[in-house]
């Protein structure tokens, strides 16, 4: 349709051409319109509301629409007084970033090799689809069930401990297997590697196989092919996967709560406990802070790789 409208015809008056141009433009707007509307209604408007509410006051049972920095000042309470120790919010973010970094590097490492295997070693398309669907298995159960399911495996009297004791490696059950940072990272990696696999696989599958042949013909070793051809061409997938994993882990409070025995701080948990106490403005202020931190990380990532250009 756009072609017929735009196609220049001889002998058309300038006013008519102008009209056609506006028609073309309005059609473009119409095409983008529904998405824009959804985006504005369900993303921009709530976000603006959260930011507005974060600067409100509150009492035990309601938000008071009066300007107040209370949500923010309470959050950074004691940050100067506690020096050189860290205050609650800094400690919490440090812990969240640590978990995020660990999860990100592990999911990247594992996800990359899974995607590599799927893209270059599995020949049939059907098997590629079947195997990537297998990666979704961790999502088949609810969080509570998953948590309960880890107990018989990692618990004090669980399989791993019994196995280690039986094999004579340890005398006493190891406690750090469950309700620890170890179990949190394990559960997060178990869940979110999938989000790395899919975009990286998607990038890899588009790599022209002739490039790899060319590298081989030019005498490159396997490692050189990997670092000079495969990894650079998988970058968009790596960045997109990283954005998925980092944004999810930064905001997570369910998995960290459940696997950490509710004793490990996370940025999401602060928001949750504020919400539970009906302190919506304080929760909103914390959400804005979390959003800011996450945007900083993501923009740093996209600075390294321009995803739009690479796609």
């Amino acid at each position: 349709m756009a072609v017929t409208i735009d196609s220049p015809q001889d002998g058309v008056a300038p006013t008519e051409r102008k009209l056609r141009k506006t028609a073309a433009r309005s059609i473009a707007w119409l095409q983008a319109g529904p998405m824009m509307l959804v985006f504005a209604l369900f993303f921009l408007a709530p976000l603006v509301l959260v930011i507005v509410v974060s600067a409100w006051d509150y009492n035990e049972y309601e938000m008071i629409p009066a300007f107040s920095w209370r949500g923010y000042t309470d959050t950074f309470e004691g940050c100067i007084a506690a020096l050189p120790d860290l205050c609650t919010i800094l400690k919490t973010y440090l812990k969240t970033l640590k978990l995020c970094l660990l999860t990100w590097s592990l999911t990247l490492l594992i996800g990359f090799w899974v995607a590599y295997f799927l893209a270059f070693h599995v020949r049939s398309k059907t098997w590629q689809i079947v195997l990537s669907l297998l990666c979704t298995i961790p999502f088949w159960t609810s969080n509570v069930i998953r948590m309960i399911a880890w107990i018989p495996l990692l618990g004090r009297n669980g399989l791993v401990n019994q196995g280690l004791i039986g094999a004579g490696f340890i005398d006493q059950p190891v406690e750090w297997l469950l309700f620890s940072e170890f179990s949190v990272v394990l559960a997060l990696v178990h869940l979110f590697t999938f989000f790395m696999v899919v975009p990286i696989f998607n990038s890899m599958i588009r790599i022209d196989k002739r490039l790899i042949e060319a590298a081989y013909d030019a005498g490159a070793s396997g490692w050189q092919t990997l670092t000079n051809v495969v990894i650079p061409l998988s970058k968009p997938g790596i960045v997109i996967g990283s954005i998925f994993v980092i944004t999810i882990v930064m905001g997570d409070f369910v998995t960290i709560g459940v696997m950490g025995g509710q004793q490990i701080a996370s940025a999401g948990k602060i928001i949750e406990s504020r919400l539970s106490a009906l302190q919506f403005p304080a929760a909103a202020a914390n959400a804005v802070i979390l959003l800011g931190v996450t945007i900083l990380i993501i923009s740093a990532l996209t600075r390294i790789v321009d995803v739009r250009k690479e796609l």
Partner: protein
Amino acid sequence: MTDRSKTTTISRRSLLKGAAGAASLAAGSGTLLSAPYVHAADAKVLRYLGTAVNEGDEISKKCLADTGIKIEYITATTDDVTKRVITQPNSFDVLDTEYFSLKKLVPSGNIFPLDAKKIKEFDNITPVFTKGELPNGKKIGGQGTAPWKVLYLDGANSKTFSATPTEYITLIPTVYNADTLGIRPDLIKRPISSWAELLNPEFKGKASILNIPSIGIMDAAMVVEATGQYKYADKGNMTKAEIDLTMKTLTEAKKAGQFRAFWKDFNESVNLMASGETVIQSMWSPAVTKVRSMGIACTFQPLKEGYRSWASGFCVSKAVAGGPKLDWAYEFVNWYLSGWAGAYLNRQGYYSAVLSTAKANMTADEWGYWMEGKPAASDIKAPDGTLLEKAGAVRDGGSYDDRMGAVACWNAVMDENDYMVRKWNEFIAA
């Protein structure tokens, strides 16, 4: 009290069967009888918002059979119930919630008090709710948000609690219990008699508390008092200095690795205890029963400092006032207190607000076991028929009078709640 027991689930199959039944019924009524099926068209439906504690399928089925009122459960955690009342008062009709949340709900103006005169059994409601004493006259502990402090309002549209009885009732009492520590006697192997044991380093890495700040801090306060460090004027309404002191005790215990995990869900508490991850933790009566029904020794240990109690009841949404739903709500509440539901709750280890009607719906043996602390003459079964206790068993903590009489404090929302939540986040980050 969060997901106190199993959540109600409707299987696709039963839904389909129900739909098919309804369809064939409608078809049948259309062809065989020319008269319309009036009962179905006039179905009285009440949307019932609450935690899973009282939301048994059997209760709604029995209610439909007895009164024709169809109960639609909306199940949420305690915090989410409160949130929903504040933010979406039109999304429910009947509210089942705990007394401690009234400090937030009443000022919001979103709930409508019921009229005591329209509740048939109101005068038979246990004096635990109305006067803070046992039926035998013994006074019980009133620290925290004790129900009798927030039971009455000044008027129908009032937002202030009345210290003296009025006819405007914030929540019509239904169910309550006395909570204490659950222990694994087979793993602890010695008598436990004080709250102080919760933070005893002997149980390092094997203790747990409830992951609700306002309740967790009260458990900690019980420990602080038990160890003789400090005596609170009101554990349920601490000053900032008292909050600091209590959180310091909790933080030290956490740093020393005392806690295995905090639990928020009924099944989590059962699993922690059954798997031996924890050997001592704050718990609920039916959770202890569930661990025991798995064949694992577990005791709901009475402690010398007393119990931390909770209570819940019914009110309606402001949106219901004036409409026909208000009459149905009265009918439903009156049915609820008429005995069948009370007996059902008693058989789970909770207590019914009207004891006389519940007693009439229980066998003498059941009443003796659950309420009088007598050894069971025959096997004790749950409402669904599963075996809970063999004949000869005695309930932990003994009789109603022994348990409710030893209540030290009630679940509460403090005046300094905002400060407390901040301190709780600090404690988690420590």
